[in-house]
């Protein structure tokens, strides 16, 4: 493996993640859409509500790890999660009336009423069909601040006060007309994630914003207008690539239902991240740490040293798997991993092996053609050809460009023929 090949491979991975990401113009469109809905909801009248509604994004859109979803192998619309937090005491309302009051307000707007999907378990969903054919599903999540008791409990479990105080209560529709509360902390999670990425983010911010500005002058008048959310650290890029890799690898697989959830991929990647500055090292480090833990499939194994300090995946003496939510230790992302003979755990470690083969070991091939072919199998021809465009250039080509010789990338060539 040469230094040049590694650099170029890094560039290809960067481009690949950027292709999976939402484009700056699409991002702006999404912000406009959710800001309008947010304003509409905030302007409503709600029983007992005094003061401002707090409306903010959560999930991958907030974390900057959005990947355009695949549905049945085809690119699909973006999902955006919007938390709508009413300044109400949890004890002064019920989940049913909270869910209903937000739903009523959405329906007061004729346009939103038409876009409104049938009621979901936790949210109301607006479906936006956009002119460019790439739409949005906007999930609006009604919530109130978490009760004081529960927040105190979290602090007691070692969660810093300022993060614990961001906890909210969200509604669950168990069945027709039966609702319950559950606890969540999307704001706290985002803050936890940001703390991890911040040192690298600060280093990369200026250069990336400059680049985004130069390439999107139709959208931004000056560099300052480029939002922080468009700057991507290798951690975020790695998560985007891992998520898409998972979707493609498990599509049609017998374990598709058991594929690792995005929250697990995001949490473990962030925990394993060591502030690497390039994407290849980031993915390599994440995969190497996680593949070591595969031994947990053998009962009774104990880890010590660095790997146990990271609190990635644990298994208790009863064989249950534990991946705690970093902002709520009571929530276990792996609570169903032991079911069906640890199938979800097995699927997870199988996937890690795949990632290692497809994205890390591939560089040992030292063959640009083979690397491209493997990536194409995993991420699709079109997207990989875009990501590799102009990257695998040799010195002779750079010389050609300097000498003014036109360069052409051949795609879809005709086979020669003759009479």
């Amino acid at each position, binding site marked *: 493996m040469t230094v040049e090949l590694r650099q170029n491979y890094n560039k290809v991975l960067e481009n690949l993640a950027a292709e999976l990401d939402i484009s700056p113009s699409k991002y702006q469109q999404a912000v406009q859409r959710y800001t309008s809905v947010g304003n509409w909801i905030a302007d409503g009248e709600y029983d007992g509500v005094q003061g401002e509604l707090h409306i903010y994004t959560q999930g991958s859109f907030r974390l900057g790890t959005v990947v355009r979803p695949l549905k049945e192998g085809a690119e699909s619309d973006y999902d955006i999660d919007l938390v709508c937090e009413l300044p109400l005491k949890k004890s002064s309302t019920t989940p049913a009336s909270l869910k209903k009051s937000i739903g009523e307000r959405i329906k007061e707007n004729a346009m939103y009423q038409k876009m409104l999907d049938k009621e979901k378990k936790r949210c109301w969903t607006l479906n936006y069909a956009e002119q460019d054919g790439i739409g949005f599903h906007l999930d609006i999540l009604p919530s109130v601040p978490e009760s004081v008791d529960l927040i105190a409990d979290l602090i007691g479990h070692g969660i810093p006060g300022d993060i614990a105080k961001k906890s909210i209560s969200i509604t669950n529709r168990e069945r027709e007309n039966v609702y319950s509360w559950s606890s969540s902390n999307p704001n706290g999670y985002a803050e936890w994630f940001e703390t991890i990425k911040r040192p690298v983010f600060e280093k990369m911010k200026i250069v990336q914003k400059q680049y985004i500005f130069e390439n999107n002058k139709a959208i931004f008048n000056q560099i300052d207008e480029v939002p922080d959310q468009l700057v991507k650290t290798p951690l975020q890029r790695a998560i985007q690539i891992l998520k898409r890799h998972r979707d493609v690898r498990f599509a049609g697989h017998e374990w598709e239902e058991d594929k690792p959830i995005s929250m697990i991929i995001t949490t473990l990647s962030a925990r394993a991240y060591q502030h690497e500055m390039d994407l290849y090292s980031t993915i390599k480090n994440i995969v190497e740490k996680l593949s070591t833990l595969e031994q947990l499939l053998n009962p009774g194994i104990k880890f010590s040293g660095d790997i146990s300090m990271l609190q990635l995946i644990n298994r208790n003496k009863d064989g249950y798997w534990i991946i705690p939510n970093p902002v709520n230790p009571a929530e276990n992302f792996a609570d169903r991993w032991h079911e069906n003979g640890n199938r979800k755990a097995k699927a997870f470690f199988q996937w890690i092996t795949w990632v290692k083969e497809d994205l890390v070991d591939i560089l040992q091939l030292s063959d640009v053609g083979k690397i491209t072919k493997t990536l194409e199998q995993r991420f699709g021809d079109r997207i990989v050809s875009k990501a*590799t465009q102009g990257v695998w*250039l040799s010195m002779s*080509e750079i010389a050609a460009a300097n000498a003014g*010789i036109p360069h052409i*990338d051949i795609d879809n*060539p*005709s086979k*020669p023929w003759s009479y």
Partner: protein
Amino acid sequence: MEYNLSDNIEVQSLELFKVHKSLQLIEEDGSICIKGSLPFSATLYGTCPIVDCYNIKIHIPTDYPNKPPTTTECDGRIPRTFHTNPDGTLCLGSPLEVRMKFKGSLLNYVQKLIIPFLYSFSFYEKYGKLPYGELSHGSLGIVESYKELFGVSDSKIVLGLLNILARGKYRGHHDCPCGSKKRLRNCHGSQLLDLMNYQSKDEFMFDLNQCFSVIRKGRDRSVSNQYSRKS
């Protein structure tokens, strides 16, 4: 009529010369040609870079742009056995494919047909094999190119689809001949309608007859061409 032709050529060649600076427009024995050296740098799907240069001559037919140009390589570097027609012109692809890429533009003709062809020869010189394969000679190659175009492996399906084009009998509600059990309009229909822009019924009839003769002789089994073999 003639005036229109040269006017069109002049505009198109200016566009071409902006990119490919060493080519020039000349008149030779009463016909129009574009001649000169064609240096290029090319990659295939972003990989396998090749920088090379050929001396070429592009012949503009009198009924341009209804008919695409033809091209010869002037230094004898490409042997006559390598996909050249009996008249010495390079065979850039099946006739229909050439039209679909040419689309009435000289720049397209150079960048989507000539350079990919020259690239494949340079690649062959360098590595001893062809980068994107080749079609068999003659009618068999036509069958193969239609199979690829329609994405089917059965020659009889090619006949069925070509039959629609050759007779000009497109009926969207009929079953698609490819056996998908879908209606034509929901299957190969839009592709057929697009193809009608590139060739006349008679030309499709000609292709249909060629395919038919190959299939009747039972020759539609892939026979490897000399350049497909590793040397």
